[in-house]
């Protein structure tokens, strides 16, 4: 079943700024889709229109085949049955943790409500913290409470708006794995807005890349990483070489170039090899798993090559393509 169906969605803010250009997207039930792009690309707007927090200017959104946003009218957010996890938690500061989590459980008998709250808090790894006030929690705990609050009413769709961005690196990955586990276990459909390549690549079944309000590419993480349609998409997911068509054959790059004529090749796809195009190592950076060598080719172009051992700056080397992985 299609959980989210977005058709021709456009949004112009008061004042004339266009945030979305005729966006089409279909998300199946249980699918986790990352929405990526630079800040200001419209990814948060897209999420907010799906939530009903913003009206659309054109186009329609349907959730589980029921239209919720269209020119004819909208279903108010509170009746959409979507849950949302906000960037800065948006917890209610005057309520204790358990009351925050119970906020969306209106209409349930008290005993069920309590059971549901403690279950939700247990799921996010915070059993026994129900009596705390929000200001007594750490940042990671707060985001876990926000998650419990969103999941407690068992929504069929969860919208996550940069849920990890206020956390430090170590907490990020732990919480990311937890969220993913919970969403998968319940088969919840999710739209996950992030500007971090790592989140999008590890979390999502598919990613949507937005550029200036336009969908530029939709696909599985592997496809987006290795076969980006443009430099913009390629750069979203990591460093990339844009290799001009003039030297592509000599490097052994195959396949069709990206829209602007250059071939997009990841640094890992290039190797130092005597049988390649010659150049000089201009700089190197250590990056934990290996080195990144910056090489000035004899043609005048600069390329990045990932190497396992430390390259010596100033030495002459040859560069060529490892295999046939280039742009589409």
């Amino acid at each position: 079943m299609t959980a989210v169906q977005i058709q021709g969605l456009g949004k112009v803010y008061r004042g004339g700024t266009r945030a979305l250009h005729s966006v089409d997207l279909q998300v199946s039930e249980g699918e986790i889709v990352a929405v990526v792009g630079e800040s200001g690309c419209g990814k948060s707007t897209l999420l907010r229109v799906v939530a009903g927090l913003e009206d659309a200017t054109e186009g329609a959104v349907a959730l589980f085949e029921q239209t919720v946003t269209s020119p004819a009218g909208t279903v108010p957010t509170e009746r959409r049955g979507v849950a949302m996890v906000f960037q800065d938690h948006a917890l209610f500061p005057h309520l204790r943790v358990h009351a925050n989590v119970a906020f969306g459980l209106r209409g349930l008998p008290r005993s069920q409500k309590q059971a549901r709250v403690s279950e939700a808090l247990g799921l996010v790894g915070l059993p026994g913290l129900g009596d705390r006030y929000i200001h007594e929690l750490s940042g990671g705990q707060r985001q876990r409470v926000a998650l419990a609050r969103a999941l407690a009413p068992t929504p069929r769709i969860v919208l996550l708006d940069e849920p990890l961005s206020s956390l430090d690196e170590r907490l990020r990955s732990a919480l990311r794995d937890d969220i993913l586990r919970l969403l998968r276990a319940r088969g919840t459909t999710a739209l996950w807005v992030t500007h971090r390549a790592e989140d999008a690549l590890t979390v999502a079944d598919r990613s949507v890349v937005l550029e200036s309000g336009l969908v530029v590419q939709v696909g599985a993480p592997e496809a987006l990483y290795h076969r980006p349609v443009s430099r913009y998409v390629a750069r979203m997911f990591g460093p990339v070489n844009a290799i001009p068509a003039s030297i592509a054959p000599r490097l052994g790059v195959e396949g069709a170039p990206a829209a602007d004529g250059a071939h997009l090749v990841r640094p890992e796809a290039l190797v130092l090899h005597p049988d390649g195009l010659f150049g000089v190592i201009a700089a190197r950076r250590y990056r934990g798993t290996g080195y990144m060598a910056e090489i000035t080719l004899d043609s005048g172009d600069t390329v990045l090559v990932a190497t396992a051992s430390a390259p010596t700056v100033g030495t002459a080397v040859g560069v060529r393509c490892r295999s046939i992985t280039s742009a589409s």
Partner: protein
Amino acid sequence: MALIATTTHRYEIGPMASWWRHRLGWAFTAVLLGIVVLAPLAYIGVSLLSPAGDGWRHIQEHLLSRYLKGTGAVVLLTMGWTTLFAVVPAWLVAAFQFPGRRALSWLLASPLAVPSYIAAIAWAGLLDFTGPIQTTLRTHLGNDAARLVPDIMNVWGVSFVLGSVLYPYVYVTTRAALLRQTATLIEAARCLGAGPSRAFLEVVLPTLRPAIVAGLALVLMESVNDYGAVHYYGVDTFTTGIFRSWLALGDVASAIRLAAVLLVVTAFALGMERLARGRQRFDDAGTTRPLSRWHLTGIRGWLATLACTTPVLAGLVIPVWMLTRWTVRTYDGIVWTEFLELTVRSVALAATAAFVVVIGGVILSYARRVKHTPLLSGITGLAGAGYAVPGAVIAVGVFSLGAVLDGLCHSTGLVPVGTLFVGGSVGALIWAYSVRFLAVGLQPIDAGFTRQGPVLDEAARTLGAGPLRALISVHAPLLRGSLAGAATLAFVDVLKELPLTLILRPFDFATLATHTYELASEEMVPASAPGALLLVGFGLVAVAVAQRGLLSRQER
């Protein structure tokens, strides 16, 4: 792993919103409210079209320039005094440690509790021929010494008195800005070698300008509105002119014209303030640290104490001392049943009006939040402008419009002819109070809402709560302080309101404020003191409540 999904409570997707559900219900209610509030003022505008009589020609030729000069002088001089009394103490209290700082920080706002006409009466009593100062000087040093006491029954004197009770408006806004200000700025100045005075002049003062100007705007409105003090001191201003035309001469058309001129002048002054504020915005970063205070020791500490004590003496201690002297003298003459009745009536009236103001303020403020439209912002903005309109003007508007409504009621047979349904009733009084003091309630409520980011509403919506439930279970608890503050301020403002009440009250209907002022004007000053003291007492409670909210959040 136990899954929540085992229990069946699924969100269902609801139907499309009707236009009412689509947030328009709130907007509609708010617009309606705005119309009720603005109608009396609009009526004044319409009335201008009716022909002016001879009275207006006479005023134009002989009195208008005098009124203009009087109001102008009072306003400018008062603003000067308030700045002097407010800014330096606010800086001292925020940035230094000296003897009595904590208590003075609180006390400096307390003259707000003293109605201007009461301070005026007390200061006049203190310095007049039979007052304690002249009497003492005469007995000990002779008549010549007593003659050195300045005469304050003029424009200079009334400005000083107004300044000494109105300066807290500037003090409170300035201190709030100082407390909100991040310590980093001043610490940066200190690291660059600036001492306290240079840091104040070059770093702090420029950033305080919007706060000072905002406070001065309130002072301007209050001093334009004042009737009791200027009339008592024999200074002619627009407000006294309106009273004279309306009550003494019965010349409604002239009163309305004077009101209109006054409105234009006030609007111009406030427009200048907006313009000056320009693009400055309060930058309310959540992570501000309070200033760490310099310690002032020895003589410098005591000088700071003195600088902060003087305004409190002028605005609160001296008036209260005079009132207490008179009360002690007239204590045996108080008719308690009468006094109690007066008190209960005034309190009930003020409480009702305060309730109406708070409800109105919440509706206006929240409607704008639920559905932001330019029309709604315009209406809320205008409805909040009632505070800038002098009470006398509002009273004239409500009374005239009330008469029209009464006429309608009579002609449609809703109400028997001869009875007053709207005009000259307690209902009209509450209507007028609401018009005038809606801004008093709206402002803290608006500020309270603004402090709650829109993300809270969004979180509530995604958890299935509509606007009403979000208001009740999220905003209201978080707004508790703001609501209490709004109610208290409105309550006290209504309680001490004089010009509006004098014009609009039903026949034979007295409040503490009108009773006090009438006794004082009829040269029964000591007899007016108990009522005045009670008003000051209520005012102090209000100041305490308002301050507690302010201090607990920003200073500890």
